């Protein structure tokens, strides 16, 4: 009755209709980039309940960094709730809410551990931080002395470790190692590096003012990429169009204006189709192209190789719908194509990302209100890139970076030509946007670790990530780790990677540390995060770890600040505030964005223009124009396509499966499949099966799901079970469930320019569990998991 009353009233009374629903865009939640958000920069503090201490923090469970409030009682965080600032209200998901329990888990590592048995034997003894760091420093120095500084590799996830702030790169640069890798090699970091090949920067979509949003495979949800989900819903509520390219009928696809159900891995072909329509029908911004773009005629010739009939065949989509979507993007604008991890993980990733860049450029949507804007550096604040000190790493060491000969796009070699343009436009020669612009190539590093590279890698440091399961060809990664002389892991839990370490050092959590974030020089706003509690046990921050390591290697001058607060004071000096003052006075700091900055400085490319035909790729020996490599022939024994790398709401990557509330929501690794395909493979809902390809086999539970197209299997990412047997040969179920065992790294399944793996369209097959032995083993696993 209530609803009927409201609808009736709303229909009759326009003044009330606007107040009916958030769907209609009345919520004051602009992105903090424009003048309309300036009134929300100061802290909003609600009176705390008696005995409760509230702190304004940034959630660091995933890569979104939502502004939240922690509530502590007796020094322990007991609640995480949404920010009181209207600007950030409702940016919270279940992972943040469950974090107090996740960090209070009884199995959390709270003291340094040293391996005492064989590697992977899961035998440990407790040591002090001093004992650990003294030994680590000495052994690392010996390895550097014996094999060269490049024999030291580091894998980290700064999203989680947060306080790294470039100190790791700084120490590596001073020691002489270029071999830093991260999951950002196939997720956002590589996008940043490839975007810069076209127009010198990695843009951020202006969700607040855009009129059309294109989601390529990406599906932000209430509990996954929450902030982006809210921005998209608000944009739709005020009338923005949504175009979704996704093989699945995802939740985003189901509310899109246009859904193009393209074949997995065919993003680049689809975008060629869009360009064909936009160029043929002259829907592009001719003035911008004439004044600011190079290589348009060559691009037009390449695009002409992709008539819509061919694109329709490559993508499996209706040519009329392709044309309609292209027209909507070009004419309903300003439009944005937000970053998508999906194009990052394909055989044609570089071309796909470049085609997105080209669309933004030729349609005139670069650095305009409602388009894809150039932000990143906050004036008056020392960026992480400056802390990293890439200039001290000698050129010959940079050229030893693993993978830079075959796949240079995001290595020092690939980004070398941008040094002068970056200095000209942004004031620094090295700007490591999203940490992805000066990386080694992960598969090349793992080959070197396994003794198959140009030189050996013998020391492997892992901070806040789980590399055994986070890159392609997991078996080679394990082989490489077993071949190491020193592995140090800074972690919360006994992950499959930690189980193979020499030392496991306890890491702090985002409840337990202060932080200062500009989202890795991608967004133009700076936010402080207050420390909510003291670290549990002997946990230390990544910042402290690097300082202790610099000291242990006899290089204390590399990290001259006494503590992280002094370090933040140094970074904020240009704003005339200490970190403490910044926290007290500021929820978010930014200067209202200036549009079309390129009109004063040019673009940060060698030519100063948008390079539709990339001079950098040409000089590196690659095709300077985007292209499309088709799938290799399907092997007859693996006739089913799968895609992997998919996150589930309760988890972030390989983390979170130890939290009871989260596990209850997603207790088992489930493969999604359509009813028709399930019937063809003779499998049923809830049935356990093996999914295999040339590399290996993993066990999954079948879920017949309406969202799935036929002939495609969706494999979840990052599955292991912390309660299962630890140590080499088991790795807590990682060897049984992890999708990384099926992720290939042979040349047919690597992008050429970057060397990132193709995860969206891998041939596989489903094997039913026929033998009694398998079923018995499965029963045991289910019992132990329960």
């Amino acid at each position, binding site marked *: 009755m209530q609803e009927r009353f409201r609808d009736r009233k709303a229909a009759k009374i326009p003044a*009330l209709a606007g107040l009916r*629903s958030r769907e209609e865009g009345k919520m004051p939640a602009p992105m903090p980039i424009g003048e309309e958000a300036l009134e929300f920069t100061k802290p909003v503090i609600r009176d705390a309940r008696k005995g409760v201490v509230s702190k304004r923090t940034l959630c660091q469970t995933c890569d979104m960094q939502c502004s939240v409030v922690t509530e502590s009682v007796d020094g322990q965080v007991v609640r995480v709730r949404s920010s009181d600032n209207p600007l950030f209200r409702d940016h*919270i998901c279940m992972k943040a809410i469950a974090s107090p*329990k996740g960090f209070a888990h009884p199995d959390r590592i709270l003291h340094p551990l040293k391996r005492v048995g064989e590697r992977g034997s899961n035998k440990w003894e407790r040591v002090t931080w001093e004992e650990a760091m003294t030994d680590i420093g000495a052994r690392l120095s010996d390895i550097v002395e014996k094999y060269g500084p490049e024999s030291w590799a580091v894998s980290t996830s700064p999203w989680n470790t947060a306080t790294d702030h470039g100190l790791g790169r700084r120490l590596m640069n001073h020691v002489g190692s270029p071999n830093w890798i991260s999951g950002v090699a196939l997720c956002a970091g590589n996008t940043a590096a490839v975007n810069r090949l076209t127009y010198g920067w990695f843009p951020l979509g202006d969700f607040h003012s855009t009129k059309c949003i294109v989601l390529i495979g990406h599906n932000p949800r*209430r*509990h996954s990429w929450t902030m982006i989900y809210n921005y998209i819903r608000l944009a739709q509520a005020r009338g923005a169009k949504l175009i979704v390219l996704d093989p699945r009928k995802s939740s985003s696809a189901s509310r899109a204006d246009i859904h193009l159900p393209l074949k997995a891995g065919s993003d680049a072909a689809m975008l060629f189709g869009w360009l064909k329509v936009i160029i043929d029908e002259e829907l592009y911004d001719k003035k911008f192209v004439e004044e600011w773009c190079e290589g348009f005629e060559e691009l037009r010739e390449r695009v002409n190789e992709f008539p819509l009939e061919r694109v329709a065949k490559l993508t499996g989509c209706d040519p009329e719908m392709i044309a309609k979507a292209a027209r909507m993007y070009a004419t309903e604008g300003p439009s944005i194509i937000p970053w998508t991890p999906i194009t990052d993980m394909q055989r044609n990733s570089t071309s796909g990302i470049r085609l997105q860049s080209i669309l933004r450029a030729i349609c005139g949507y670069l650095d305009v209100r409602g388009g894809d804007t150039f932000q990143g550096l906050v004036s008056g604040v020392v960026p992480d890139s400056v802390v990293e000190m890439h200039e001290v790493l000698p050129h010959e060491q940079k050229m030893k970076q693993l993978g830079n000969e075959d796949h240079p796009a995001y290595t020092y070699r690939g980004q070398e030509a941008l040094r002068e343009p970056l200095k000209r436009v942004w004031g620094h020669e090295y700007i490591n946007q999203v940490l992805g612009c000066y990386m080694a190539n992960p598969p090349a590093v793992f080959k070197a670790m396994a003794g198959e590279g140009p030189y050996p890698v013998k020391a492997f440091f892992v901070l806040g990530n789980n590399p055994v399961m986070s890159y392609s060809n997991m078996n080679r990664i394990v082989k490489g780790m077993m071949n190491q002389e020193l592995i140090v892991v800074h972690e919360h839990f006994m992950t499959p990677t930690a189980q193979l370490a020499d030392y496991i050092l306890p890491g702090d959590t985002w409840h337990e540390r202060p932080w200062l974030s500009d989202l890795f020089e991608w967004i133009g706003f700076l936010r402080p995060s207050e420390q909510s509690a003291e670290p549990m046990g002997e946990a230390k921050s990544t910042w402290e770890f690097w300082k202790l390591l610099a000291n242990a290697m006899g290089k204390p001058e590399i990290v001259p600040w006494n503590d992280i607060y002094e370090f933040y004071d140094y970074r904020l000096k240009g704003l005339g505030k200490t970190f403490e003052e910044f926290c007290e006075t500021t929820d978010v700091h930014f200067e209202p964005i200036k549009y079309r900055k390129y009109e004063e400085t040019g673009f940060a490319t060698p030519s100063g223009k948008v390079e539709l035909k990339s001079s950098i790729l040409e000089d590196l020996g690659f095709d300077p124009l985007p292209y499309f490599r088709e799938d290799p022939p399907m092997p007859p024994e693996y006739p089913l396509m799968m895609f992997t790398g998919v996150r589930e709401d309760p988890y972030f990557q390989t983390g979170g499966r130890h939290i009871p509330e989260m596990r209850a929501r997603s207790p088992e690794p489930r493969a999604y499949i359509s009813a028709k395909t399930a019937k063809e493979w003779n499998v049923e809902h809830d049935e356990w099966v093996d999914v295999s390809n040339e590399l290996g086999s993993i066990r999954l539970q079948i879920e017949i799901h309406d969202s799935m197209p036929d002939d495609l299997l969706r494999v979840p990412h990052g599955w292991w079970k912390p309660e299962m047997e630890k140590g080499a040969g088991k790795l807590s179920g990682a060897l049984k469930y992890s999708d990384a065992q099926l992720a290939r790294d042979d040349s047919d399944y690597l992008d050429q320019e970057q060397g990132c793996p193709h995860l969206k369209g891998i041939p596989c097959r489903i094997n039913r569990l026929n033998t009694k032995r398998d079923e018995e083993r499965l029963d045991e696993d289910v019992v132990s998991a329960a």
Partner: protein
Amino acid sequence: MWFRLLNVLRAEFIGKTMIFLAESGARNRTPFDRVARFILSLVFTVPKQDDFMADDYVDNDAGYDLEELRRYQSGQ
């Protein structure tokens, strides 16, 4: 012209009524105040199915009990 004038008068009436109801609802003393609150809640409450940010897990969260959390932490 008459139609426009009528619209203006109607908007004015609605505005005044809403302000009156808000004042009364904020007072919340008499039975009529409570009726005013009820009317306002009918107008302003977003139905759950239309509220894309509504979520039981988030909306019903009251945090953890410290003692329970500590027992959990110690493996009990």
